[in-house]
C-alpha cells in the first residue's frame, strides 16, 4: 500500500505545481506589498498603471488586481510592490469558459 500512497502524494503534488505554474495569465495578479508601503499607496499605484483592485487577500498587505497593461507587473514592482504574480486561471471541475476581466 505504501508505494501506492507515495505515488498518490507525488502525483497530486506534481499536478498542483503544474497547475499553479501554468503561464496562461489572463490579466489577474496577486500583489504583495512591502512593509514600508501602505495599502493606499499601492492602490494608487494600481490605478495609475491602468489597473483596478478586485479584492484583498486573507493575509495583510496582499490584494488582487486586474490590468490589461502588458507592463503592469513591472510597473507595480517599480512602485514598491514586493511581489506581483500573474495568476493562473483555475477553472475547477466545470470551468469551461475563458475568464476575462
Amino acid at each position, binding site marked *: *500500500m505504501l*508505494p*501506492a500512497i507515495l*505515488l*498518490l502524494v507525488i*502525483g*497530486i503534488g*506534481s*499536478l*498542483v505545481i*503544474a*497547475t*499553479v505554474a*501554468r503561464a496562461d495569465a489572463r490579466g489577474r495578479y*496577486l500583489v504583495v506589498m512591502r512593509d514600508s508601503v501602505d495599502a493606499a499607496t499601492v492602490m494608487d499605484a494600481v490605478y495609475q498603471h491602468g489597473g483596478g483592485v478586485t*479584492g484583498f*487577500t*486573507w493575509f495583510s498587505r496582499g490584494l*488582487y488586481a486586474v490590468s490589461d497593461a502588458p507592463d503592469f507587473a513591472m510597473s507595480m514592482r517599480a512602485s514598491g510592490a514586493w511581489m506581483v504574480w500573474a*495568476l*493562473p*486561471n*483555475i*477553472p*475547477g*471541475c*466545470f*470551468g*469551461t*469558459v*475563458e475568464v476575462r476581466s
Partner: protein
Amino acid sequence: MSPQILQLREGFGRLLCWLIWAHVPLLAFAGWTTTGAALPAALAGTLLAMIYHASWLLYGHAAVTRNLSAIIMMCLPAILLMLFARKPWQMDMHMYFFAMMALSIGWFDRATIVLSAIATSLHHLILLYVLPLAVFPGEGNLARVLLHAAIVAFQAAVLIWVSGKVLQAFERIHRMSEEIVATSVALKERTLEAEESTRVKSIFLANVSHEIRTPINAILGFSHILQRAPLTPEQMNQVRKIHGAGSTLLRLINDLLDFSKNEAGKLILERREFDLVEAIDNQIALVRDSAEERGLGIEVNYLTNVPDRLSGDQMRFDQVLLNLLSNAVKFGRTGTIVVTVRCDEWTDDTVSVQIAVRDNGIGMSAEEQSRLFTAFSQADSSTTRQYGGTGLGLAISRQIVEQMGGWIRVESIADLGSVFTFMIPFERVDTGASAPMRDKAAMPGRPASKNEIVHVIDPRFRDLCVLLVDDNEINREIGVGLLGNAGLLVECAANGRVACDMVGHSGQRYAAILMDVQMPEMDGIDATTEIRKVWSADQLPIIALTAHTFDEERRRCLAAGMNDHIAKPIDPKLLIARLNHWFQRGARKTIPQPMSHNVVPLAGDDAFVTLPADLAPFDLGLALDRTNGNPALLRRLIASFAQTYASAPSDLSRLISAGELAEASRLAHSLKGVAATLTLSSVADVAALLERAATSDETGETDNLIAALAEALDPALAAAQTLEPTVRTINTSQGAGGVRGEQDAVDLARDALVRVLRRRSLTAEQAFDAYAHALGLDAQARQDHPALQAIASRDFDLALEALNLSHPGTFPKRRDKSA
C-alpha cells in the same frame, strides 16, 4: 483464492501493461493539441507506464502491483483533465475517471477499487476545491466536489458489490469443481473396488463351483456305477433318484455361476463362424432322448432360406436354444415340439435369426408370463416343486439374448401350450459363390436323428489319431483310456516342445490335438502358437484342457489359436462331443494310423474284480470314476504312483536344501495333481503347500511340511504295495495272461525308471534295480548294462538313450514321447 480468479488477474495485469503504455502517445497527442506541451505529457505517461511495468515484472499481480495500478489509472485521466482545462472537452475528461475506475474491477480486488475511489476524490478535493479556494477565496465549489465524490463512492460501492458477487460465484464454482473432482476420485475408487470385488466374487464362484462339482461328480459317478450293479427295484429307484438329484444340483451350480457372471458384466461374447443348421441339430440331439422318454417328438421347420455360415457366439446361442428345448421337453405333455427357424432382415452383412420353440405343455396365464424372465422365477412356486429347476434358465437366456442385441418373448395359453421366440442378429459370412445359402426346400421338417447324439463317437471317425499333450503321467493315462474307449487312437507328448516336434515330423497323422496349458519347457499356449505357423485351425483342431474354468483362461487359449476349451476334470461325454464336432468340420476323416496303440475295451461289470474292496487311503470308487470305470488303468496308476513318488519327501528335501526350488516346485506340483486324481487329498494338500513354499521362496517351514508329506504318503505307499503282489499273482496265475502280466511289470518298472531319469533323481539307481529285477537280469548283466553305467556317471540323458536302444521293443506300448 480460486485458480480461475488468479488466472483472470494474470490476464488483466498483462492487459494493463499494454493499456498504460498506449496512453503515452495519447497524452502526447492531447498535450500537443491543447497546450502544445506534448513532451511533458508524454514523459509523464512514460513514467507512469514504467512504474507499472516494473512492478508487474517484479511482483506479477501481487497487491503492490494492483494498488499502484489503481493510482496510475487515476493519474491518467487527471493529466488529461489538466491538459483539457478550460477546453470544451474538460467535462468529458471527467468521464474517463469513471471509466478507469470501472476498469479496475478487472482485478476483482476490493482494496484496489477503494484506492481508486480515494485517489479520485482526493484529486478533486485538492485540485478542484482546495487549490482554487487557496488562490481565489470563494472560487472553490465544495458542494459540487462532494457531489462528484458521492458519485465516485457510489460507483465504487457498485463495483465492490459486483466484484464480491463474481468472487463468490468463482469460489462456489471452485468448491463445486473440487467436490466434483473429489467425488469423481471417490467414484473411481469405488468403481475399482467394485470391479475388484466382482472379480474376486467371480473367481470365488468359479472356485467354489469347481469345488462343489467334485463331490457332485462323485455322487453322479457312484450312482452311475451303482445302477449297473444288481440291485432290488427299490434300491434301483433310490439310486436313480440320487442320480437325478445330483444332476439337478450340478445344473443349479452351473446356472448360478452363469447368472452371477452375467450379472457382474462378465458375459463376454465371442465371434466365431458356425453352421446354424448344425448347431440347431446338435441341441435337438441333446434333448431327443428325454423327449422320446416322455412320448414327445421334435420337429424342425425352416420357414426361410438359411445362411450357410454365420459369425457370432455359437456357444451362447446353443445355451439359449437348449434351455428352451429343455423347458419344452420338461413341460410338454403330448404331441410334437416344433422348432421354427426363420431368417429375416437380410443385409449384405447381417441377418436376424428368429427361432420359435412351441410345445403343447401346461401353458401360462398372462400374469405368469410377465414374471417369467425374472431370476429365480417360474410361472408359480408349485411349478418348481412339480417340475424342478432353478428358475434361472430363462433369466440367463434373456441376459444372453439381450447382450447379443436380440430379444426373447413368450406367448402362451394356459393348458394349451407355449411358444418361446427369440431373435438374435448375426453377421453373415461370405462363403463365396460356390457355397450359396441353404434352400429351405432342402431341409423340410428336418428331425435330428439318433446317430447325431454327440456323446457317441461317429463311426466315420473311429481310429482317427489324437495327440494328447500333458505333462502329468496320470492325466495322460486317463486321456488314453477315455479316448481309446471312444474308439480313437492316441499318441502322447509330455510337453509342448515334444508336441511341436511330433507335429512337425508327422502332423498329417493327427486328426486333433488335446493340449494341456501349464507344462514345463514349453506350455500349451506357446506350443499352439508354434503349431499354428504351419497348421491352420481348420487343418488341425487344437482343444485346450485346463484346470481352470475362468473366461480369461479360455480366451487366452482361443487367442493363441486353439479351437476349443474343455475344463478339467474332463467330462468324457463333452470331450467326445467336441471331438465329434471338430472332426465333422474338418476334412481329416480317413487318415491311416500306423503308430497307434491297440484299444483295450473296458472290463464293464468286472470293474471291481481286479481291485480290492477297500484300499484306504485311496477312495477306489471315486478314483475309478475318474478313470472312466477302468480298474486295470486305476491299478496301473496306483502302482505307478507308488513307484514314482516313494522318494518324493527325500527328493524334495534334497532339492530344497540344494536351492533348486524351481525343480522342487515342479515335483510338488506334479505330486499334488496325481495325488488329487487318486483321491489322496491329504497328500495333495501338503504337496500344494510345499509347491507354494518353493514357488514363493519361503522355505522356513518346509521341513515340517516334508515330514507331514511323508506321514500322509506312507499309508498310500503301503496300500499300493499290498496291491502289487496281487497284480503279479493274478497275472502269473492266468497262463497266457501271465506273459501279459510280466510285460506289464516290466513296463511299469521301465516307466518308473524313465520318469526318475527325466527328473534326474538320485533314486534312478534304485529304479534301475527294480527294472532289472522285472527283466530278470542277473548281477553281471545289470552291472554291464549301459543305462546303469550312465546313471553311475550321472549322465541321465545317456541313460535314457541307452534304455531306449537296448530295449526298443519294450518302449511304452503307446507312443509316449515324454521328454
